């Protein structure tokens, strides 16, 4: 009798979605720090809703699809102030949503991931490019949509080597994240056969990024800073802190191109990207947000679309089902980069082509032709399976 009852209940549950009038509700949280990162160029100052705007567009796209599948997606935004506890905020948000898109610095992301470990909440890292989050500090409940520093560095190095600009004058900022990007670029140079002919440190001695007669001073400083270099093809700058790199193009002592943190820059997305149907998402984004789409917007869009895609394939909004689908062999996502994006199963990093942009145009897209790989050419970018230090748990 009981067995019959269980079977009957099971049948009713299985049959419900067909009859259900109420849509499956899928809540997605967005957790980021308030405040705007400094930039040397005024036109590159991020908007307050940088990232979030991309997630919003993906929610619209998911809902257009969802109306055919009786699924409804919502976005809940939480912005942390300076001293606010990230673990607490993440836990509160996780009470309302099974998925959280995070735009957090590395340490904050780890705190949030560890606080949510036993809840089954799935985190999507949309903002942090630190390799360690995918290597020694990897977490089983974090999917990385943002590319890593080493993916960005490899993408640039492949192009410079293809271009036969193999002799690099290397200029590194004095902050920690500049050094991390420099490490990634050094590794890339070794991997792909470029040579760093000399390395210079640009000390950040403080000072304002905006002044009234700054240009005059910069024009005197930069040629002097770059003179007496050994013969080189390209100046590669590592300046994530936005202290000096954007001052270098057109001001080097020798007439040489600049790449890295200024000049030719590797990035996951740019407002000028119009290939592979991208014009459609660019148009949708501008229409919704009245501004151009940034890399962070695209990373957040992709994260929310991954959730939408998994929900439509599994016909479920359950984080466990979504997570299993995303980790499984059937997952791939289209994100206007000319090929399908998949997850590296050893560290949950999204494989993706990297754009090389000059600020106005997409110059090239890596991986470059001829850089081969036995599994996926996208795995020529960043740390590959044999090198991984990640043990997912």
């Amino acid at each position, binding site marked *: 009798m009981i067995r019959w009852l269980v079977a009957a209940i099971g049948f009713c549950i299985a049959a419900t979605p067909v009859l259900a009038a109420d849509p499956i509700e899928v809540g997605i949280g967005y957790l980021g720090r308030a405040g705007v990162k400094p930039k040397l160029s005024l036109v590159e100052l991020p908007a307050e809703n940088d990232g979030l705007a991309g997630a919003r567009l993906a929610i619209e796209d998911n809902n257009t699809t969802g109306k055919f599948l009786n699924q409804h997606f919502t976005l809940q935004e939480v912005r942390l102030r300076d001293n606010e506890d990230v673990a607490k905020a993440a836990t509160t948000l996780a009470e309302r949503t099974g998925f959280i898109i995070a735009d957090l610095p590395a340490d904050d992301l780890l705190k949030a991931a560890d606080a949510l470990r036993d809840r089954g909440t799935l985190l999507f890292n949309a903002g942090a490019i630190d390799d360690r989050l995918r290597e020694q500090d990897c977490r089983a409940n974090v999917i990385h949509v943002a590319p890593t520093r080493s993916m960005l560095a490899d993408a640039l190095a492949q192009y410079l080597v293809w271009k036969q600009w193999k002799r690099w004058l290397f200029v590194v900022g004095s902050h920690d994240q500049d050094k991390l990007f420099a490490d990634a670029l050094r590794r890339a140079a070794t991997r792909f056969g470029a040579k760093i002919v000399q390395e210079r440190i640009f000390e950040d001695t403080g000072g304002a990024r905006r002044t009234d007669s700054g240009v005059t001073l910069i024009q005197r400083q930069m040629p002097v800073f770059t003179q007496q270099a050994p013969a080189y093809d390209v100046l590669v700058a590592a300046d994530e802190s936005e202290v000096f790199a954007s001052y270098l193009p057109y001001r080097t002592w020798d007439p040489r191109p600049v790449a890295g943190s200024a000049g030719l820059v590797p990035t996951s997305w740019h407002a000028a990207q119009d290939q592979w149907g991208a014009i459609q998402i660019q148009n949708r984004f501008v229409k919704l947000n009245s501004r151009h789409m940034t890399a962070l917007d695209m990373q957040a869009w992709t994260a929310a679309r991954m959730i939408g895609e998994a929900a439509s394939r599994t016909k479920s909004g359950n984080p466990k089902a979504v997570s299993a689908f995303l980790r499984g062999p059937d997952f791939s996502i289209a994100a206007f980069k000319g*090929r399908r994006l998949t997850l590296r199963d050893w560290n949950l990093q999204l494989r993706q082509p990297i754009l090389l942009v000059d600020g106005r145009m997409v110059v090239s897209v890596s991986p470059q032709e001829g850089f081969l790989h036995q599994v996926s050419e996208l795995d020529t970018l960043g740390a590959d399976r044999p090198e991984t230090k990640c043990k997912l748990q």
Partner: protein
Amino acid sequence: MKEDGLRMWRHCLLSGMAVWLATVAPASAFIAYVSNEKSNTVTVIDTSNWTVTKTIKVGQRPRGIEFTRDGKFVFVAVGDDDSIQVIDVAKQEVVDTLPSGPDPELFALDAEGKILYVANENDNTVTIIDVEKRARLGEIQVGVEPEGMAISPDGKFLINTSETTNMAHFIDTTTRQIVANVLVDARPRFAEFKRDNSEVWISSEIGGTVSIVDPVKREVTKKITFEIPGLRSEAIQPVGIGMTKDGKIAFVALGPANRIAVVDATSHKVIKYLLVGQRVWHMAFTPDEKYLMVTNGVSNDVSVIDVAAQKVIKTIQVGELPWGITIAQP
């Protein structure tokens, strides 16, 4: 006697000419129109000698292209001008414009050639146009980035694929309502019915597959996958599909894999791969089905395939980024 002899001689000559014409003249004297997405032109090709006879200036970003049923006009969707232009085949120039809705890409004409269904990529809609009155009859809300369009052989259903929603929407052409949505693999680009209405094939560019959908049950019954030695699976991106009228052989353009897959349309098995130009996109048969012409976007040319021999026999240079193609009687 003299006159008789002359008549006989003339008769002989004429019948001889006819024999000569039948053996030497190509069996397929048709005319092909190719849209060149980047050069904003349409190339006209004479298939009797595979030469370009004319290049017609059109609006911004021409893509979807189709002859009208009477063969007198060619419609070409010029997406960045938000319209569909009408080329007069006799004059070989643009003579009119249809109100298509924003960013038209692909479209489908009904059997009588009176109603045009247009996929508007920017708007998540399908626009319905009365061709004669040049008037919009209505719009249907579909998924994100509508693209592929096909009408069932009985005219009852319109299939529209939406690229980011990853669905084939079945639209009832009488009520203009969506009656079913079939999930397929990522970025569905093109839909093609078998003439007997037993199957509709949907290509998924990013997913790398062609889904076979049962139009009655409205579910995926099979998926065709493609494997080419030496090529990573990510490079295999199915887009255009062409099927012979008897439903026996299908051709699938594999985009950046630079190949056309020849598929046994009954068993759904790939028979062979034909190497064509770079980024092969869409295709059209000559009306006698002896030849298939395919557009190669990156190499700026059109490959001609001998359908019976399953061989590439010719390459013709056209404009920049050739995209769509349509062929009719001259």
